[in-house]
């Protein structure tokens, strides 16, 4: 009973989706408004993970735009990668990319993923994500805001 009262009391948490100008990515046209995401943390400080978590949370709720997190790269169309790619994670990142069926897209989330950010020249850092797998979309920011991540993902679903 407590749960029912809570459901009624809280109501709808999701904020109205901004009427943001969604610029559909031509490469994602074949996906037809359905994007399943597999995430790889290639060496991030976890800041970007928290923001990605927020993007999938009730408040930003990217699921309404047709985005869903999945448990296996086989099921995924889009690989989100965060962090500078460390030496140890380069192999797993490449393997994850190869385990995905074509067509497949890569979203580099955060400044570290784009250009290694503050970790550039670190001893365990191999390089930015684009050195390991081809990147289709970049989301700048350290960390990027959930709205920016949501907007990048909406660019893939086209909605």
């Amino acid at each position, binding site marked *: 009973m407590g*749960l029912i009262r809570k*459901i009624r009391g*809280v*109501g*709808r*948490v*999701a904020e109205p*989706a901004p009427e943001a100008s969604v610029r559909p990515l031509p490469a994602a046209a*074949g*996906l*037809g*408004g*359905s994007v*399943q995401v597999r995430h790889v943390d290639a060496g991030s400080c976890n800041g970007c993970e928290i923001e990605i978590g927020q993007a999938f949370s*009730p408040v930003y*709720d990217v*699921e*309404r735009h*047709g985005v*869903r*997190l*999945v*448990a*296996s790269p*086989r*099921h995924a*169309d889009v690989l989100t990668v965060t962090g500078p790619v460390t030496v140890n994670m380069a192999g797993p990142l490449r393997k994850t990319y190869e*385990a*995905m*069926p*074509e*067509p497949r897209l890569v979203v580099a989330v955060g400044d570290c993923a784009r250009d290694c950010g503050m970790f550039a020249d670190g001893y365990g850092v191999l390089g930015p994500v684009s050195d390991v797998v081809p990147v289709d979309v970049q989301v700048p920011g350290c960390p990027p805001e959930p709205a920016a991540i949501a907007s990048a993902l909406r660019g893939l679903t086209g909605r």
Partner: protein
Amino acid sequence: MTVGWIVAAAQVVLVAAVAPLLVGFTRAVRARLEGRAGGRIAQPWRDLRKQLRKEPLIPADAGVFFTAAPAVLMATSVLVVAAAPYLSTRGPLSGSVDLIVVVGLLLLGAVALALAGLDTGTAFGGMGASREVTIAALVEPTLLLSVFALSTRVGSTNLGAIVAAGTSNQAQVFTPASALAAAALAIATLAEAGRLPVDNPATHLELTMVHEAMVLEYSGRDLALVEWASAMRLTILLGLLANLFVPWGVSTSLYPGAVALAAGVFVAKLGVLSGLLAVGEVFAAKLRLFRVPELLAGSFVLGLLAVITSAVLA
């Protein structure tokens, strides 16, 4: 005869079309209760359309058991839908496929997927297969006792006969025995369809998976077939639950008007049941795997009580 086949085909088309929407509706209801906006109801259709166009991968050591399983799963689902009395009790297959065969065909689909999980050679595939067949083995007594409770009053296990008897003699439907059997079958449905509290269809954690673990290796059109067939299995089970225990609206003839009405009523029943399912899932947590047998033992006792009640009251 031809009309009968058209109705059977209509059932297949209807269920195949509605099944992904049913999954979308369940997700939407859950999202609303959780304070989220949620995806659109047609989103599973978009997912399927996309998966059908994608490239299927096959693990290096897998063979024909892996590649054939999605087709087997789909075939068993379609056969069950064609034979079940969803729109009319006078379907052309109602004398060829009875309730026991339906149970067997659904099990065959699960077995095909379990063998596929083992065929991948991954630990998760084997784990999912092991769990799936364990649960399937324990659900079987409940399912057949429910069949017992339903069929003794009619003298036949043929689905059409059971539903037709329910529509013509409505006093038979609301008996204590039917209520017990419905409760037993509802629990069995949750286990068979891999819903909470037996299995969590939305989990991302491999160690808690049952059904999802078996299909981790599928992609592209294979994945599309598996997901479509899984959605159809949920629809099949909810539809059976609806029409066996609430048989009103099912056409006992093959007149187009009656069948069209039956289609409307059927979709409405599915909507109500899937809504209830979604609401229930908000309140339920997944059971530990080794607590599931206790739940199924409970459903077994309900089934046994249903059979004995119906014999005592008869």
